[in-house]
Every structure is written in C-alpha cells, then in structure tokens.
C-alpha cells in the first residue's frame, strides 16, 4: 500500500469523509478446530450473517493525530481506525462516528461489525478499496478475536484469532430463513471472559466432517446439508458452553421440519434454520415461533438470510 498516501496527498484528501457499514451475524454455523493444508490445527468458524442489523461508520480525516470516537466507549473501533491509517501509511487522525442497530453481548457480532465498518470508513475516506482478507486481518488485530463478517455473506472458514481464511468455500450461503431467539434468559455473554474450548480428538476429527458438509452445502446451495452441519456443531458446543433447553429446541426443530439448529458458540443466540423456498414457510415459521415462546425463550425474531428480496 506504500505510495497510496503520496498519490492522494493534498487538500482534497484532508477534507475527505468516508462511510462504511458492516452487517451483523447470528453466531456461527460451525465453530471448532480445523486442519490447514500442512495438518496444523487452527481455531476457526463459519459465520451466519444477518443483513437486517448493521453498524454504520463515518470517518472524517483531520490533521490532528488523535482518532476521536463517538460513542466514546467503542475503543476497539477506534483502534481499528488507527490500525487502518497505519496500514495505509497515512499520518494524522480523524473523527469516527458509529451508529449501530446491533444489540451488544448476545453473539450478534456487534463489536466486529463496528470494527469492520470503521475500517471500511477509514479506507473510503482515503479512497482505497481494501480486500476482505485485509479487513479481516485488521479486525483481528484490533479486537484479538473476530468473526468473518469482513467477508459479508461470502462463505469462508475463518481463523478468528489469526485473521486468516482456512478454506474459502467459493460462494454464498444458500438462501435461508432463520427463526432466532435467546437462550439462558437472554443474559448477555462476555466473549472475552470465556476460556477457549478444549476439544478432544473425536471432536476435532468431526469438525473436518462438518467443514466438508458446509463446502457441499455452499457448492449445491443446499440448506438441508447446511442445517445438519449447524446442528452437529451446536451439539458439540453444548458440551463446552451449554444452553438451557437445547433438547427441547432440537425436538421443536425436528417436528417443524427445520433444516437444523444453530447457536452462537460464544453467545446466547439460538436459531432454527429453514429453507427459504420451503412451502408454507410463513405459517410454519409463525407456528414454530409460538412453540419457542411457549417453551420459555425470549425475543423470537425472524431473519431472512441471502433472501434477495424474496417475499417468503
């Protein structure tokens, strides 16, 4: 990137303002430990993006060295802006303003969305287009562990502590309808306080199988295979960060003919995955939402994923 700053020096740059946005997610389809080409193990995840919730950032450059952030508690976003300026070899600072509709602490990825939106806003202010892989790396540098939202709805197996892609599935997730809700009484989880899960050999081997299933599901745009991968990963997650009422939800999913059960592996979110093009979906989703509420779960919401405006 050296040289970008030189080319764009001058008054126009000093006054430029950039905006950037990033979507939320509903936790992970799968999360675990995965082998790279050389057989080394990496923690990794496949994010389930939901475009209905988002964070928007505006960055206005200034000659001042400081990055000033609004609201002022979003220090990771401010760190991300600084890292982006450094990466682009640009001196000075700016004012970063964030506006987000994403609830904090449940596994919606509010923090990463702020960070990614900020990186994009800074890059936009400098009239630079960053690659998703670069944004992902900067996000991890800013917040230690990050989800794959820098890749938007593009499906990748992302090493959340290293900021690298373990496997690029080469396409988007298939269109889904997610009936989401909160477990454990909706109490937020502080992700950074969670110790990383220790997986046994059988679990590590199983993650390879789940990864294969996601690859096939993306390749054939098959929501059923994706749902099976999510359910199996949720079941493993139950051994490490248990969610109350899991068995009951699995039973509701089975009776409702859902593709699978999905969880935020370091949050309180729960989801039932449906094929967006399934018949009678509106009625079935309403029925299943009612059953979930009756089972005592809070804040049942419906999120279309990769719906492209489909009136399900």
């Amino acid at each position, binding site marked *: 990137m050296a040289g970008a700053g030189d080319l764009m020096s001058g008054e126009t740059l000093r006054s430029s303002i950039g905006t950037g946005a990033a979507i939320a997610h509903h936790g992970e389809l799968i999360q675990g430990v995965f082998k790279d*080409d*050389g*057989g080394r193990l990496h923690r990794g995840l496949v994010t389930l993006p939901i475009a209905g919730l988002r964070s928007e950032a505006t960055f206005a450059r200034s000659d001042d060295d400081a990055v000033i952030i609004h609201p002022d508690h979003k220090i990771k976003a401010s760190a991300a802006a600084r890292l982006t300026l450094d990466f682009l070899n640009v001196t000075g600072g700016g004012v970063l303003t964030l506006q987000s509709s994403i609830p904090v602490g449940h596994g919606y990825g509010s923090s990463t969305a702020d960070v990614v939106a900020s990186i994009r806003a800074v890059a936009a202010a400098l009239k630079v287009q960053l690659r998703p892989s670069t944004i992902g790396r900067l996000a991890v540098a800013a917040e230690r562990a990050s989800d794959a939202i820098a890749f938007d709805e593009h499906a990748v197996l992302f090493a959340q502590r290293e900021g690298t892609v373990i*496997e690029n599935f080469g396409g988007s997730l298939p269109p889904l309808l997610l009936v989401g809700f909160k477990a454990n009484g909706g109490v937020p989880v502080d992700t950074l306080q969670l110790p990383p899960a220790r997986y046994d*050999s*059988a679990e590590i*081997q*199983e993650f*390879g*199988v*789940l*990864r*294969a*299933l996601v*690859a*096939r599901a993306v390749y*054939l745009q*098959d929501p*059923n*295979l994706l749902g*099976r*991968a999510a*359910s*199996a990963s949720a079941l493993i997650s139950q051994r490490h960060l248990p969610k109350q009422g899991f068995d009951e939800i699995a039973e509701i999913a089975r009776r409702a003919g859902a593709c699978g059960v999905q969880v935020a592996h370091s949050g309180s979110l729960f989801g039932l995955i449906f094929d967006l093009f399934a018949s009678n979906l509106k009625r079935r989703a309403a029925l299943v939402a009612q059953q979930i509420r009756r089972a005592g779960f809070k804040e049942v919401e419906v999120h279309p994923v990769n719906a492209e405006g489909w009136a399900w």
Partner: protein
Amino acid sequence: MVTLAIDYFRDLETPRLARLAPNLVAAAFPLMKLMPARYILDRAASNGELKAASHIVETTSGTFGMAVALLAAARGYRLTLVTASTLIDAKYKARLERIGATVISLDDPRGDGNQPGRLERLQEILATEPDGFWTRQYDSPGNWLAYARLAELFIRALGKVDCLVGCIGTGGSLCGTASFLRTVFPHLTVFAVDTHCSILFGQPVGKRMLRGLGNSVLPKNVRHELVDEIHWVGAYPAYMSAHRLLREHGIFMGPTSGAAALVARWVAKTLPDAQVAVIMPDEGHRHAETVYNDDWLATLPGWPCKEPPEPRTLTTIAPAAETQWTRFLWLRRSLDDVLKTQTASAVPSAIGAVENL
C-alpha cells in the same frame, strides 16, 4: 478439498472415487491402511509418545504393516513387524524387508496365527526398548478416528449418504467412517462385510480362504452397535465380483474389495432411492498370480461356480461354503445381545477371549 501443499502420503492414502451405479459410489484405495497409520504416527509424534528415530512395533503382516513400513522409511523410524509363518508369504516379507522393516516370522504349529506368541515377542521388544512405540491397530482409537477423512471425502463428493458398505477386519475403516457419517446423517444404514468362519459377528472360528477380510480374534475397534446388517461373503463370489470390477469398470482391486462391491451393488439395486457409498480397501496387484490367474483359479474345487444373485438371509448365524453369500439382520445390537438370541449349539466358543490384540 483443493489443497496446495505437497504431501505424498496424504495423496497416496486418498481413494479414487468411482461411480459403480447411478446411486453407488466406491472409494477405491491403493493402500487404505495408510490413513490410520499416518494418523496414529502423526498423533503419537505430536504428543511425544513417538520420539525421533524410535522403534515402532506391530503384530501385523498385512497392509497395515506395509503402510507403517513406508512411513517409517520416510520418517526415519526403525520398524519391527511380528508375524506368523502361516500368515506371510516370502514375497511380501521380502518387500517389507526391502523397505527397511525387520520381519520376525514365528512358528505356528497350531495354524491359528499364534497371536499369543506374537504378543509375547512384541512385549519382549518393548521391554528392552524404552523408546519403543506400538501402533496397536486393533484397539487404538486412532485407527477409527483417522477415517473422519474418508467421511469428509464422501460428503464432499456425494452430499447426503444413506447407506455405507464396508469390510470388517479390525473394524477401523467401517466403524470409523460410519460413526462420523452418523453424526450428521443419523439415519445412515451400515452394511458390514465379513467372510465365513470369521468370529467377528458370531461365527465359529475356522479356516478362511479370503485373506484380509474377517478375523479370528476380536479387535476393540469392531463396534457391533453401529452395524445394521452383516453379510458373509465366500471367497468365490468375492473373486467373481473383483473380476467384474475390472471387466465392467476397469478398476483393479483385491478380493476383499470384490466382496464389498458385491454387497454394495445389491444394496444399491435393492434401495434405488438411497445414496450408497462403499469402501474398497485394496488393489489387485498382490493377487495377480491367484485371483487374477486362470491356472490358479482352475485348481479351486468347484470353480467356476454360479454367481449368487442375492444373499441368503440367515436367522441362525452359521458358516457356509466358500461359494455362498449370506446375511443377517444385526440391527445395531451388541455381540452379546445377538448371541443370546442364538441357540446354544450355534454359539461359538472362541468369542471374547482375546483382549488387547
């Protein structure tokens, strides 16, 4: 998965997939046992059990021994394989020795493989070698864990798998692949392929004509509760099926693969709406002078025989002739539970006596 790193043994252990029927895909392995051998050695090396230049020992004379011998040669380990004179031919022994393995071939006066004598000898070696490492293919969990990779390959190629067909010798490949596939496809129906007079599924011990299939001892890695149906295939139908693989598909496999393909074709025909996967563990080269040699085949009593079009279903487990193919509905039961349902006279005596083999 597309992989860009160079790894000879990972490639060599990877099966080629072949479509044998519209709803039947076979994994044809050059040397299947590389998959567990590589996994067991990798794991032992990374957790410190297997140190550089250590001495590896195992009681096999089969393809697992070959796989470990190749890896030991490439990675600088010493290897001793303890076998019995009745189990290994001079050519295979010479091949293993050329790779660098020490092959100890014990006398076998009873003709049963002399497993107690082999274990005793193996323990003697381990006692004198503080850095010795025993791969334990019969009871190491590494044997079945390694086959997650085969489950991955099937899923990437097929998506949903409804039926899995595979041979049982140590139980590693079929039970490993089945247990991983079941984590995502709980409805998976598992068809185990054994041969007459193998004790694994309750038959009395006896002389087996098909090498590399079945067992006269019971490895821990055989998990009966995973199996829906057990098929016992005699040597003759297995040979004919291997011939068909070559003639109709151009795939040159050994007779155990022939037995698996025979059962798999029947499953695929019987269940046309099911996606069927079959594991074919061995190539035909080792059998060029026997199974693929008309002069040798002509010496077999009763060869050629009529090819059985379907298995005979048994309600009482009993051995049959080498020309026969039988099946029994195992229904995911334990060995004990199934044996309880059999009449006293049919209960074989050799079961359950052997641990740790």
